């Protein structure tokens, strides 16, 4: 979940509530769903919250939500914007994997250290969340005075160009560097470049932004040094590129709202797309070709929700006025309306920084939060149903009960393991052997740890590991597990054959084959199946003391004395007899 660092003094200033002490602030923030996780070295609150309200990724957004909560603000607020002077021209050479761009000009911003830090944090947090680590959307913020626009057309003002370049076609000085590099060199030589190289690894051409002087930004990787923003910057150019127009537009809205809250003026930017754009992902939402797009798009969206749905879902009766009041306190605009079938409903306007409102249900949730969910009285639903267990789990339980009755300590082992434990240490060779446990493994695509690379094909290796880890404990150790195993099987829908398995091991100074067979006989009797144990061979067991477990005529497992090599491999200094068979056989 996202964590945002917020200076409590800034929060007091932005909310206009100097009288709130830290404790009160924390409580109010918790009410919003922002949990206090701790403090930074500078005394900033570290606030954790669920990733729905990404408009709260900076102090300005958190303060806005608090003002609604306090009742200081009501309804939707939309900042004023000035008409566009700048244009972003999108060149047909732009990589078709990253065809979208958006932007805004910010005038008269007062960037002290704290404001600059807050802006950088907002940028980083948006990258991490909506931007999907810059893959889906990446933000570049530039000092406008360092840009030299080309004359876009006779009537319009300045323009910059979003283009695609060959990896080593051009050079620029990236941030945190003092020499010119090509985009290709940035990816191999620059720290930030290496970090984000994966995103553009498959691109034929790299995204680049030019002004009249030349290349000044290499999104989504790094900006050029020439346009670097510092505390002296007064006017900013914000550009965002990405794989989806809606996403970068919403990210832009959140940034514009934050800077507006700091007293800056937002100036629109025209985005001029080519007449026939090419998209790598054909399913992506298109922009209208040939139409100039003006950004930021601060229009509200509209949702319709019925009074019945609100009352039904929250289980509370409301006056319509009360609902409108709650919606306004949630920062929405609302008016009552009559639905097509004559019912009472609400037309709700949603501000342009909200990214989480997809469905009228999300509006109901806002009403609930404004009302206070903890104000609701729990009630047990008057719904009659009959409970019951699944056959498989009752069978598992019954077998487990019998094994416990026979004196076994019931185990619960991980289903994930690795090839060494599952095969090698048990002397099983999956490529050559055809025995229990030698099934083809279901492996994990990108294992995190070398201990867990596959799903176990049988349970006995887990039991052997438990014995290995408990050689300092008293004997006899009679252990058993009714558990899960799986192997690759092309005849299955999922290519994975899953099974429940019953495994047991008796580690005793005088353990012999008979001890294990006695357990099987007991189980066979308890579950009314016919048991035969014809001689077989299995690499984990001693030849001549190994049998196939045949229940009601079907070979379902193996029983025998574990091979000395397996015992020694597991540091065991006494005989172990063991068995494993499919649970289904006892059905």
């Amino acid at each position, binding site marked *: 979940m996202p964590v945002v660092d917020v200076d409590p003094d800034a929060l007091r200033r932005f909310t206009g509530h100097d009288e709130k002490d830290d404790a009160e602030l924390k409580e109010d923030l918790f009410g919003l*769903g922002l949990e206090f996780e701790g403090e930074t070295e500078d005394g900033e609150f570290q606030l954790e919250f669920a*990733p729905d309200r990404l408009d709260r990724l900076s102090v300005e957004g958190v303060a806005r939500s608090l003002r609604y909560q306090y009742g200081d603000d009501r309804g939707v607020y939309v900042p004023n914007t000035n008409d566009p002077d700048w244009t972003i021209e999108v060149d047909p050479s732009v990589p078709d994997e990253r065809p979208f761009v958006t932007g805004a000009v910010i005038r008269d911003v007062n960037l002290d250290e704290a404001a600059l830090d807050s802006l950088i944090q907002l940028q980083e947090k948006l990258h991490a969340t909506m931007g*999907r680590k810059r893959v*889906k959307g990446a933000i570049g913020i530039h000092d406008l005075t360092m840009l030299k626009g080309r004359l876009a057309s006779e009537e319009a003002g300045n323009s910059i160009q979003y283009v695609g370049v060959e990896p080593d076609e051009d050079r620029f000085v990236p941030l945190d560097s003092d020499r010119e590099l090509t985009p290709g060199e940035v990816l191999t030589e620059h720290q930030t470049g290496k970090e984000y190289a994966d995103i553009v690894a498959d691109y034929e051409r790299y995204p680049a932004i030019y002004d009249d002087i030349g290349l000044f930004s290499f999104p989504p990787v790094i900006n050029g040094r020439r346009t670097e923003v510092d505390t002296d910057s007064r006017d900013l150019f914000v550009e965002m590129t990405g794989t*989806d127009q809606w996403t970068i537009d919403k990210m832009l809205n959140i940034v514009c709202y934050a800077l507006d809250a700091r007293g800056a003026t937002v100036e629109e930017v025209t985005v001029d797309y080519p007449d026939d754009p090419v998209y790598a*992902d054909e*399913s992506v939402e298109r922009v209208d070709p040939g139409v100039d797009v003006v950004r930021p798009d601060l229009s509200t969206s*509209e949702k319709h929700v019925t009074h019945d749905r609100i009352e*039904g*879902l*929250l*289980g*509370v009766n409301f006056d319509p006025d009360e609902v409108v009041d709650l919606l306004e306190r949630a920062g929405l605009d609302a008016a009552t309306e009559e639905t097509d079938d004559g019912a009472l409903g609400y037309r709700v306007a949603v501000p342009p920084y909200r990214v*989480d409102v*997809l*469905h009228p*249900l999300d509006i109901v949730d806002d009403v609930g*939060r404004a009302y206070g*969910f*903890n104000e*609701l*009285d*729990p*009630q*047990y*639903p008057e*719904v*009659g149903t*009959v*409970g019951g*267990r*699944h056959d498989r*789990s009752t069978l598992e339980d019954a077998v487990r*009960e019998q094994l*416990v009755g*026979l*004196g076994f*300590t*019931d185990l*619960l082992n*991980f*289903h994930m393991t690795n090839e060494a434990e599952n095969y090698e240490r048990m002397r099983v060779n999956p490529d050559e052997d055809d025995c229990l446990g030698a099934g083809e493994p*279901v492996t*994990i*695509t990108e294992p*995190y740890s070398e201990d867990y690379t596959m*799903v176990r094909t049988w349970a006995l290796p*887990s039991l052997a590991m438990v014995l290995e*880890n*408990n050689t300092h404990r*008293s004997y006899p*150790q*009679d252990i058993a597990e009714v558990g*899960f195993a*799986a192997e690759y099987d092309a005849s299955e*829908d*999922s*290519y*994975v054959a*899953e099974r429940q398995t019953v495994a047991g091991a008796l580690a005793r100074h005088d353990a012999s084959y008979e001890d294990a067979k006695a357990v099987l006989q007991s189980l066979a009797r308890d579950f009314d199946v016919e048991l035969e144990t014809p001689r077989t061979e299995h690499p984990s067991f001693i030849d001549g003391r190994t049998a196939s477990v045949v229940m009601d005529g079907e070979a379902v497992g193996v029983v025998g004395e574990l091979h000395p090599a397996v015992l020694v491999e597991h540091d065991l200094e006494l005989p172990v007899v063991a068995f494993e068979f499919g649970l289904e056989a006892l059905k």
Partner: protein
Amino acid sequence: MQLPGTQVSVLEAASATDARSVTALADELGAKPETVVGAVFELENRCLLTVEERTEKRVALTDEGETYVESGLPEVRLYRAAVEAGATDDAISMGQAIGASGLEGDAVDIALANYARKGYGSIESGELTADPDADPDADGEATVLTALADGPVDAEDIEESVLDQLVSRDLVTVSESTERLVTLTDEGVTALMEGVEESETVGQLTPELLTSGDWQDVEFTEYNVEADAETRYGGKKHILRQTADRVKDVLVGMGFQEMEGPHADAEFWINDCLFMPQDHPARTHWDQFALDVPPMQDLPAELVDRVEDAHRNGVGEDGDGYHSPWTEEVARGVDLRGHTTSLSMRYLSGLAEGELEPPQRYFSVEKVYRNDTLDATHLLEFFQIEGWVMAEDLSVRDLMGTFTEFYEQFGITDLQFKPHYNPYTEPSFELFGEHPETGEIVEIGNSGIFREEVLRPLGVDCDVMAWGLALERLLMLTHGFEDIRDVHGTLVDLDFLRTEEVVH
């Protein structure tokens, strides 16, 4: 006749003519009185003895009585001093007499109170006379006290009026005790004449002893019944299984049916049906285990279309979709399930058990897999308790009521519902409750009402509320475990499993 040793000794010590007390027999045999009593009753059962109970009143000195044995009764001392001072002839002053007697404090009052009563003389207007005929050596009370100095005496041996006086003066106490007196019967005498032998003591009760009836004549060797026995470990269900059983019992009792389904499943069931956008951060391999197998072959085509449409365009007239890529290829990828909500999806879609009509309640307590860092509170595999309720009209209050009821069964009360965000539920709540031991407020689950973007593609037209919770978390809360790795997996300590208190 063969008898156990103690019974033989008692029989031989008893007499047919002289009733002997158990105390006396015990003294004589050097045995504990309770052992002799046991033998006496055994012998009575065999009709070799009769037992008569007699209640005896025993008189004994109190501490005060004991002091007078040595110093003499106060009134006697006063009389002797008065005689010495010549009070047999003329009255002397009381002060003179007391001074001469050496009496002090309470003893003065005691002497004066008993002096005239016992005829030692008269006390009048501060003057005291002594009766020359009085004989302090014949003082009845003093005599009895002296007699008691050697030990308690039967109350019958003391004159009643004297005893009453001594009792009222708190110089003696009377206690009742029951004494058993035994006398040999004729059979007893006959048995002795025919010869009684001591039977052997027996260490182990054997089948032979039982069948032959010899058990009646033997004595069993006494054991040290307080000593520790050898440690014994029976079979035992795994502590986590026990907890799972309990959860299942509670849920079945609340009307929930158990679900089951595949561990390895298509992402479609694990994530797409749950309205998790395909570029959701939790869908990267850092969070879930993708399996190296070909894509899932069979997915219901129409359902896939409806789910894709929900992702792209949303559900309902003014619903919006995600602005995220969606491909069937990703949906068909097979993973180890990251939650058992995949089972809920299979059931709600009708695929598992056919179309479901409300109302329904379903649950599972099954394993899930998360690519997390293994630490004290996180495992790569754990058990998830998953439950849902389907009904025509459900409200947030119904959700709260259901969970309040469930958690109360585990001693967790005062639930708090913190509004939360999940892609698949709205409203959503994190559940917090008070730790039954520490009183801390801790997170105990995640819940919500399934979004219409989840339900409508599945063909469900009513409301469904759901919740999830790690079973290990519940166990840690109710048992106070600190490190979950001690409990679950191959690193488990067998002694921990053997000795941990059972769940009930």
